[in-house]
């Protein structure tokens, strides 16, 4: 070995030493302080900024951060600014669990806003429940969960389907081709859909699940051709949805005769699909970027001016945004001395708020009353709202399961 190469190795060891030096200060950091004493209110953001779900989660991060900045610009909540701790869980469940520990235990956050996928929510759940924290989850999900430590801002199956499925049967017929990715959310949505089809006299002509990220739909398209359904009921997510939409369009199907009716497609996916291939297909969601309300105009305007004119808002980022305001409304009801996650949760129940989608309400079961809308995508990437639900729809996470109800006391079995 030459002396010089030994020296370069020493240099590399110096890099390593620097790593060790970085590691040291964390060791001496003590436990946090009581919530009530500080002037700032500590909260956390736990959305992936890197990795495969970062495309969506960054928009949620941005929307929540926008709300936080708006609140702080107006002097905080009851004069106390929000101190935001930002973590990047890198799309990895184990990292979510680790960063959630940091936010709840080390940083003493009274609330953390985070997660898009069910897997990441489930990874965070043990530490939230063990530490009696409060986790604000903005995403639509499969329901059948009734944690007392999670605030659910997104739709559960009954909110997206109870108006949508009957409307689809009436307008296109009752022969549904159920297509989704292979995980718990599509399966559960389809369980609910099949129950509704039973009641309406329709049927599921085929039910099919492809792996997450699956992108070759030629055999699916052949099966669609041979079964000839009234419509495709889709719970494909992300890249799979984009690939399917393009191939479905390329196969020459007419969206006016056999549309894809999706529970998961938002402005983000439509932008990736391209306006022409997405045009004419249908979605059911509580919010669209093009919905006209003064609150939404303000939200879209603020979002674009903060993050750029080419950015889109969608039904999950809207929830990420309004959940921060629900949090604010809850804190405003509390004495500064009694701000704890549990007190915030209890104060949040019953809070009504003018969100971009309409006036929403927090149910005692910690889910949110929402305004589902049926819309048709246009070639400019925006949605044209066809049917606005007549009334705010209550969340029923155990809708399809007789004898189980999610209440203010948790899950009740009768």
């Amino acid at each position, binding site marked *: 070995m030459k002396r010089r190469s030994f020296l370069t*190795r020493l240099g*590399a060891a110096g890099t390593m030493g620097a*790593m060790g030096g970085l590691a040291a200060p964390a*060791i001496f950091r*003590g*436990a946090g302080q009581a919530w009530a004493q500080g002037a700032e209110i500590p909260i956390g953001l736990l959305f992936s900024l890197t990795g495969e779900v970062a495309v969506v989660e960054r928009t949620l991060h941005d929307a929540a951060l926008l709300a936080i900045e708006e609140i702080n610009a107006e002097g905080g909540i009851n004069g106390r600014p929000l101190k935001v701790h930002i973590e990047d869980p890198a799309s990895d469940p184990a990292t979510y669990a680790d960063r959630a520990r940091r936010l709840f235990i080390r940083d003493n956050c009274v609330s953390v806003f985070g997660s898009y996928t069910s897997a990441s929510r489930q990874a965070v759940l043990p530490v939230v429940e063990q530490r009696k924290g409060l986790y604000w989850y903005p995403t639509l999900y499969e329901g059948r969960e009734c944690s007392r430590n999670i605030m659910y801002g997104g739709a559960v199956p009954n909110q997206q389907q109870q108006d949508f499925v009957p409307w689809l049967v009436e307008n296109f017929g009752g022969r549904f081709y159920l297509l989704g990715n292979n995980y*718990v959310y599509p399966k559960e949505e389809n369980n609910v859909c099949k129950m509704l089809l039973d009641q309406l006299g329709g049927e599921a002509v085929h039910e099919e699940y492809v792996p997450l990220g699956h992108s070759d739909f030629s055999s699916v398209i052949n099966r669609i051709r041979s079964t000839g359904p009234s419509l495709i009921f889709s719970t494909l997510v992300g890249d799979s949805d984009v690939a399917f939409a393009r191939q479905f369009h390329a196969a020459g199907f007419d969206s006016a005769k056999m549309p894809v009716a999706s529970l998961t497609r938002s402005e983000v996916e439509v932008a990736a699909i391209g306006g022409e291939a997405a045009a004419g297909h249908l979605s059911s969601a509580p919010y669209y970027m093009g919905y006209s309300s003064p609150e939404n105009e303000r939200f879209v305007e603020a979002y674009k001016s903060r993050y750029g004119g080419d950015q889109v808002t969608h039904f999950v980022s809207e929830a990420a945004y309004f959940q921060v305001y629900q949090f604010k409304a809850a804190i405003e009801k509390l004495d500064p001395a009694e701000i704890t996650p549990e007190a915030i949760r209890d104060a949040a129940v019953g809070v009504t708020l003018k969100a971009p989608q309409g006036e929403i309400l927090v149910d005692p079961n910690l889910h949110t009353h929402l305004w589902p809308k049926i819309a048709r995508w246009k070639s400019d990437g925006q949605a044209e709202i066809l049917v606005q639900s007549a009334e705010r729809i209550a969340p029923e996470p155990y809708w399809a399961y007789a004898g189980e109800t999610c209440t203010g006391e948790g899950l009740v079995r009768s």
Partner: protein
Amino acid sequence: MNRNNRADYLGHIVFILAILLGVPALLGFDGFELNTFARYLSLAIVASALALSWGTAGILNLGQAATFGIGAYVMAMHLKLVASAGNPDGLPDFMGWNNVTSLPWFWLPFQSLTVTLILGLALPALLAWAMGIFMFRARITGVFVAIITLAFLVALQLWFIEEQRFTGGQNGLTGLAPLDLFGWSVDTYSLGFYYLVAGCLIAALVIGSLIVRSKVGLVLRAIREDSQRVRYFGYDVARYETFVFSTSAAIAGWAGMLYALVLEFASPTYIGVAFSLAIVIWVAVGGRESLVGAAVGAILVNLAEGRLSDMFVESWLLILGVMFILFVLFLPRGLYGLLRQGFGRIARLREGQGPKDARAQESAQ
């Protein structure tokens, strides 16, 4: 070699003392910090398991996460059954969601903790044994072993995701009960739990070191250098390779069980390529020729990752990547190699050898 042995022993003792006394004291016996460090220690176990097969016998197992993940799922299955005891038929919730009506037979053994603990070691070992027979009897070596193990890992992960009726699919196994270890309800934020994991790490290192220092270890090192020559000496090379491969798998399964305890869920990402390659990186950083070196590598990289992600929320992955590249370029034998080189130099200087002799001796090593 004696001098190196002495230095190695000293290193072992320093490491064990640091884990048992230094770290808890430095962390101020804080529950959160200890929990985080216990996670690093369980990862250190799987790193030293890889060093056992890679460093000693030259078998680069890129699918180490497979056996690690099986261990994690075994433990999680037991805890899931405990948590589901109140359900009708004791059926875990996710099975009900997937329209499974009764508990599948292969879940039944996991109702018993003892059986679970045994299977957590035995299943990975058996699997590795079967793979080992297939690979090593056919005299597959080097990069092909790496490819086969990696392919197996990918297949296993797909299978775990596909079979969501029985494995929880993408979400994995969540909503687990705390472990009741023969009457002791394990609080993962306690000092006791930290010492449980630390004790397991030390035990795994001792077992590994005994193998490395035994005659078997000598044969394995010989196989690493020149398997053909060892074969001509009359040794059954495949048997030795299969043995170390299975032992490494059992230790990885052990680490997986602890990991599921720390994080309180099992996820298919534990069987992922990214995680498996991360293990290789830790071992490369620490030095694959030393089990303790690999363990230290795992701990240091994870500490650095934790610290960097705290300071550079946006770019921590990038910084980490650059560091790994620097390591591979300038320290191919890892920190252990560097230390050994340093020790060797100091010792030689003390014995008054000229640099010329030292260089000659070094090349002779």
